[in-house]
């Protein structure tokens, strides 16, 4: 049983790495990019997608029991090899 909070910490660390790299990329684009609608549109799209994914994930996580453990063995021992659609 692995505490779920460990996965949350790993996710937050990776998210911080992403945010740092994305911020540097945006700063470079804003500093050296040509004043053109496509420059602004691509940057706005990156910011928008980031906001949607991060807020959506946080919204979903608010309904998850973070104190519960994640049982890896129990999950993968379940026999389910037939399509269920």
């Amino acid at each position: 049983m692995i505490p779920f909070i460990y996965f949350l910490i790993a996710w937050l660390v990776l998210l911080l790495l992403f945010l740092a790299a994305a911020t540097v990329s945006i700063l470079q684009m804003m500093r050296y990019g040509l004043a053109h609608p496509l420059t602004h549109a691509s940057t706005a799209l990156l910011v928008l997608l980031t906001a949607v994914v991060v807020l959506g994930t946080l919204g979903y996580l608010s309904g998850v029991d973070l104190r519960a453990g994640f049982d890896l063995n129990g999950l993968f021992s379940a026999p389910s090899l037939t399509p269920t659609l």
Partner: protein
Amino acid sequence: MFHLDKLPGALPDEKLVGLYRRHPITIFGLIVTFFFMLVLPLGIYLFIRVFHSDYLANQQFLALLIMFGGLFFLFVVMFLYQNFLDYWLDTWIVTNRRILNIEQNGLFGRTTSELRLYRVQDVTAKVAGFVQSMLDFGMVYVQTAGEKEYFTFEDVPHPNLISKQILELAELDRKEHLEAALEEAAEETSAASKENLHEKMARHIEP
């Protein structure tokens, strides 16, 4: 931000003639790869839904799938953005006085080079291969007096038109700035003759 009406080190009476980038087809392969990487989390989700639907009943497993799937999606979008940045910031600017080459190397590397049009001696357009011929893009090599290195426009659309345009502009600039061109040529000649003289003297002094 970089404005075309405020070029770096602008010269008097300078007017923009053209701004060129690599042909968009040069990043087509990259876009296709990223598209497949973007749909990969969705594919994994569908696979689990079809073959292991009971996994999705586990709230923690679903939460992990959403967290790390979303993060993977964000990293792919960011790498796509960085590659677009690399493409978008590589520009060749032609004005009636000079050629500017602004090249982005990765995220932090940036090279800016400049060439005065009256120094242009030879311009070569090169279209090689089936794709380049069909889509009319290729290389333009600009050779200057006294320099061995080429000034290269990489994979630009309509290379023949660009080379013709540069030659015409160079001719015009040479006529308009004949004095400056002559002065520079004289300086180069005197510098070369001085170097020759120094070499001869050095040989004479050596035992």
